[in-house]
């Protein structure tokens, strides 16, 4: 039916083909409509719904007596929320920085014509295929003071060796960092390696001919050109950090006490087990604000970058 795509022909022909032509014209929109509807309802509608819930004093069940922003006031006065938010800053900060440093170093080292590079890359990256629950379970076993790493090193003759962060409420948050970095740093390595491989080799040769040393080439030429990769990596890692839930549940359960609570576990505990749906919804909205605070500048710079070529 070539007439569908060309300009309208004579009135008679147009009439004869109008039904089929009409269907054909709206079909693409008809096909995508369900997905759009789903997104509007299940993403945007739910965001609004949760926001409304956060303005009520819902407890065990949602109800709609609006109390303004009282839940947010309660949230910010809540000691446990403070711990969770502080933990997120500590955990997220250390997690992102460690992943970037380890990922970058591994990528640079791997980029030196290494034999068996593929094997090494596979090994660095495999944790990313695992469930965070599996990661949590394994690290909980490794880090348990009784039979884990502490016991093993003591068994080697270092009787005073102590590594009991898992049960130390001041240090437990760092066990989350260790496990999360183990899981995600290989992924950052893969991002950086792809970035390194896309740098023009002639840049290198020119710099080497000018007599620049290797460290100098890396700090002056390579690192600046990896800036977009760093941006993307920070963005992804921050996103992972804010959403972290599984790892906490499996590794520390939020404990000792609530020492390793993160906003995600705070939200879950208050919404589903403590009968504080209003407060839990307020914390969920705060998490959304956190994601937007990272996403908006990122998208802005991405779009601006595209426009300027």
């Amino acid at each position, binding site marked *: *039916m*070539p007439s569908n795509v060309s300009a309208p022909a004579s009135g008679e022909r147009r009439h004869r083909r109008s039904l089929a032509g009409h269907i054909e014209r709206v079909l*693409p*929109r008809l096909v*995508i409509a*369900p997905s*759009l509807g789903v*997104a509007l309802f299940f*993403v945007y509608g*739910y*965001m609004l*719904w949760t926001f409304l819930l956060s303005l009520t004093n819902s407890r065990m069940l*949602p109800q709609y007596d609006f109390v303004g922003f009282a839940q947010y006031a309660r949230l910010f006065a809540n000691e446990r929320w403070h711990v969770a938010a502080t933990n997120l800053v500590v955990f997220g900060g250390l997690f992102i920085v460690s992943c970037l440093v380890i990922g970058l170093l*591994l990528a640079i080292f791997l*980029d*030196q014509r*290494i034999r068996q590079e593929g094997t090494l890359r596979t*090994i660095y*990256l*495999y*944790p990313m295929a*695992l*469930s*965070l*629950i599996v*990661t*949590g379970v*394994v690290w909980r*076993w490794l880090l348990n003071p009784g*039979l884990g790493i502490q*016991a*093993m090193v003591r*068994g080697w003759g270092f009787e005073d060796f102590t590594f009991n962060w898992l049960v130390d409420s001041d240090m437990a948050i760092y066990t989350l960092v260790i496990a999360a970095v*183990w899981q995600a740093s290989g992924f950052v390595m*893969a*991002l950086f390696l*792809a970035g*390194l*491989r896309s740098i023009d080799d002639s840049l*290198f040769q020119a710099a*080497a001919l000018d007599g620049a040393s*290797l460290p100098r*080439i890396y700090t002056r030429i390579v690192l600046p050109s990896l800036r977009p990769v760093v941006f*993307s990596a920070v963005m*992804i890692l921050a996103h992972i950090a*804010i959403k972290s*839930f*599984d790892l906490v*549940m*499996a590794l520390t*359960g939020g404990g000792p006490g609530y020492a390793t609570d993160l906003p995600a576990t705070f939200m*879950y505990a208050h*919404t*589903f087990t403590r009968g504080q*749906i209003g407060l839990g919804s307020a*914390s*969920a909205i705060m*998490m*959304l604000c956190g*994601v937007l605070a990272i996403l908006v500048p990122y998208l802005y710079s991405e779009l601006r970058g595209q426009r300027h070529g």
Partner: protein
Amino acid sequence: MANMVRRHTTSARLWRTGLYTLLIVAALVYLLPLVVMLLTSLKPLDDIRAGGLLSLPSTISFEAWSKAWGSACTGMRCNGMSGYFLNSIAIVVPAVAISSFVGALNGYVLTKWRFRGANLCFALLLFGCFVPFQVVLMPMARTLGWLGLASSTSGLVLVHVVYGIAFTTLFFRNYYVSIPDEMIAAAKLDGAGFWRIFWRILLPVSGPIITVTVIWQFTQIWNDFLFGVSFAGFDSQPVTVALNNMVNTSTGVKEYNVDMAAAMIAALPTLVVYVLAGKYFVRGLTAGSVKG
């Protein structure tokens, strides 16, 4: 890159040796948890209590594996992981199939049948990749209740399809953008319609992106915990939730070897996919995140 600076001096050789040592040590550190998990799962409990994470088992025993599979306790029940493993499969297969198919259609429309507002449409869909799922948990729980899907496998399939579409659409859209529009225009001139072009022209060249999408969705959904723990009932819990329950079950003697065997069972499917199709896995990760 960077290897034109190749001097065959002692310092250069030292640098290479150091480099390899570092890379290998790093590889060992990454492997350690997997090795310990496997070793522990093959040891009798007495070996474990004797200490030595890395010591080899005195006798290799698969008892822990069979117990983890068939008779270990997760919470109140003692039927092992097998049922939950099957639950996960029952969730993953339809959810991956539906979300990938819908994503392919969306990508096709958004690139080859562009209409006014197509870009806005894509942007609206894309935000689904970023939304923290905590924001949708409570409304989703209510909706599933109203639909009569609470605690059911179908409910979980629905949830995973709904929040998977954003990613699958992104993958297919970015792939189809690179397929020349002339091919589509020529087919239209030949009288091919919307569906015919999709089945006959687009789908046959979609092999790589289908692989990437299916692997991505499979890994995401198999590894999901949040939706599983929030929406599943006793009979529909996925394997991750069961694993977490098993490890946290505190009755009786703690059998670490069984825990580790259960963790291996939960990890194996995605691990196997990664080993067999690592290239596609990496491509999904970078596509799903860098341009996400």
